[in-house]
């Protein structure tokens, strides 16, 4: 499928989703939908570095929260429209991703992953100690009730996140099919052989880390407006870290569809579980599903489908 056709199709689907939800006159759909889309962006972002390149980032929460806190910091100084905040959040998280990558990507993947774990703790510590953004007490963000043209504020936020999700998926797909995507895959398959084949592995890994971090920051930027309040506990919530890893692994890590499937599936299940059971139990479910899939179906749902198709064509 040509790229611009893909874009048109996704925009069309997005429009259907948005206007469909409006038609149903249920604001809760927008609240829940926002979270699912947020996870879609996070899962797609994670997958650029984790699935395509094979480098596991445990610090999703750090990049995400940096985007959220950039919004808070700027809001206190000079309130800006959300799209601008998204861009700025993306820049901040992207730069942090680049910096951290530069320090750790020369080494084995395991060290990079450990460093991301530690990074999450450190960024949380730094922000908890930064009183300008509220420190451990948190910060309040006042949001307008209505937005012209669109309707209620939550619908506006939903639309923003929907747009971001479309952009993220489109970008992931474009990367995957480009020379860059081949380079990423070669790094994932065999970094030594990739270097010997002329692939500038460090440079590509830095690109992946920066892009991944940037999208995570962009996903986090609207968060203070979604909730109206932001504190380290909610910004650095472990749910972000585990979901951004579980969703691509469940859906399938080698292609852009995997995170989408994983996010839609797991995200929806969690939204339902939070309402019907409890939010702690739903996190437990995600953890168990992650471990189960990693052991039993390492290539995710996409992998299972591919195996089924291949078996059929080999016959």
């Amino acid at each position, binding site marked *: 499928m040509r790229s611009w056709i893909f874009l048109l199709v996704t925009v069309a689907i997005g429009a259907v989703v948005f206007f469909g939800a409006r038609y149903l006159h249920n604001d809760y759909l927008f609240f829940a939908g926002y979270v699912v889309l947020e996870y879609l962006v996070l899962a797609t972002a994670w997958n650029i570095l*984790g699935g395509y390149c*094979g480098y*596991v980032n*445990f610090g999703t929460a750090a990049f995400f929260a940096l985007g959220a806190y950039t919004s808070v910091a700027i809001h206190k100084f000079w309130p800006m429209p959300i799209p601008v905040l998204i861009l700025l959040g993306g820049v901040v998280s992207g730069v942090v991703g680049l910096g951290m990558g530069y*320090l*750790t990507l*020369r*080494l*084995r*993947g*395991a*060290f990079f*992953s*450990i*460093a991301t*774990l*530690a*990074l999450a*703790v*450190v960024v949380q*510590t*730094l922000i*908890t*100690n930064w009183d300008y953004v509220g420190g451990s007490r948190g910060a309040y963000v006042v949001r307008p009730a209505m937005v012209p043209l669109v309707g209620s504020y939550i619908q506006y936020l939903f639309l923003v996140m929907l747009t971001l999700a479309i952009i993220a998926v489109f970008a992931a797909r474009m990367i995957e099919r480009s020379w860059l995507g081949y380079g990423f895959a070669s790094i994932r398959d065999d*970094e*030594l052989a990739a*270097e010997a084949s002329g692939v500038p*592995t460090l440079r590509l890994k830095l690109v992946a880390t920066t892009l991944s971090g940037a999208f995570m920051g962009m996903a986090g930027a609207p968060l203070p407006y979604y909730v109206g309040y932001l504190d380290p506990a909610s910004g650095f919530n*472990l749910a972000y870290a*585990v979901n951004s*890893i*579980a969703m691509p*692994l469940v859906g399938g*890590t080698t292609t852009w569809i995997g995170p989408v499937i994983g996010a839609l599936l797991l995200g929806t299940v969690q939204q339902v579980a939070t309402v019907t059971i409890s939010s*702690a*139990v739903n*996190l*437990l479910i*995600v*953890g*168990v599903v*992650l*471990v189960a899939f*990693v*052991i039993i179906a*390492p290539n995710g749902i996409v992998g299972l489908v591919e195996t089924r198709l291949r078996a059929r064509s080999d016959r």
Partner: protein
Amino acid sequence: MDFPVELLINAIVAGLLLGGFYAAVTAGISIAFGILDIVNIAHPAFIILGSYIAYIVNTNFGIDPIFVSLIMLPAFYVLGGAVYQVYYASFERRGQESLRGLAFFFGLLFITEVGLVLVFGVDYRYVEASYIGPTLRFSFIDLPLRMLIPCAVSLLMMACLQLYLTRTFIGRAIMAVSQDQLALRLMAADPVRIKRVAFGISIGTAAIAGAFLIVIQPVEPSVGREYIGRVFAICVLGGMGSLPGTVLAAMLLGVVESITATFYGPSWAPAVAFGILLLTLALRPAGILGR
């Protein structure tokens, strides 16, 4: 100028005691990651598990927590062996340990933490023991017993481990397994079984470290996360698999953290471990061949 020498010395002493404890916490990672090359980021979860078990037994039966952990040692050893068996069958054998193995351990870490939250809630738990209150005093130097006893037992444990690894057949086989599997097979030792024993020992140390933890400080499920950065920082700094190196590195980290906490406030402590970790990683020789 009145430089607070007494404060500094006390900070250093406290740091050394803390370092002894950190050594016990890291011992398992030194074995699992340093020697076996298994990135078990769930290790802190096993430690917290040990803490909670010590808490339950201590609260219900009044038994000393460190004693409880010694009794729990065999159970944790078996648990470690089981976890390794799954890890080996699912990942190591298929050569997929990087992405999937990491995700596996992360999943375990997560499930443990959330499970503990569901069962015990997020309140801090603590144990009662005769040595938790008192403090020894030598002129101006404070030696809280709740830090001193775990530190002493920890160093004893490290010494025993080192003896085991260097003097027994299985211990030496463990040291060798990371370097030359073929030679091991020729010596009629099964590398998989050796690794299972080693990983079992690794998780066994977590039981003991867990008891130390809850003696030193109150525990709640998310406490484990702070330790991930610490244990890997110490493991890398200590030379990846050298137990004496681990002890030294742990003491160093303990002292630096203690001084930072004393003069700049305790909320900066996690950042210290990360800083040291980054520094150590940055100074390692570059290259894809890593170690």
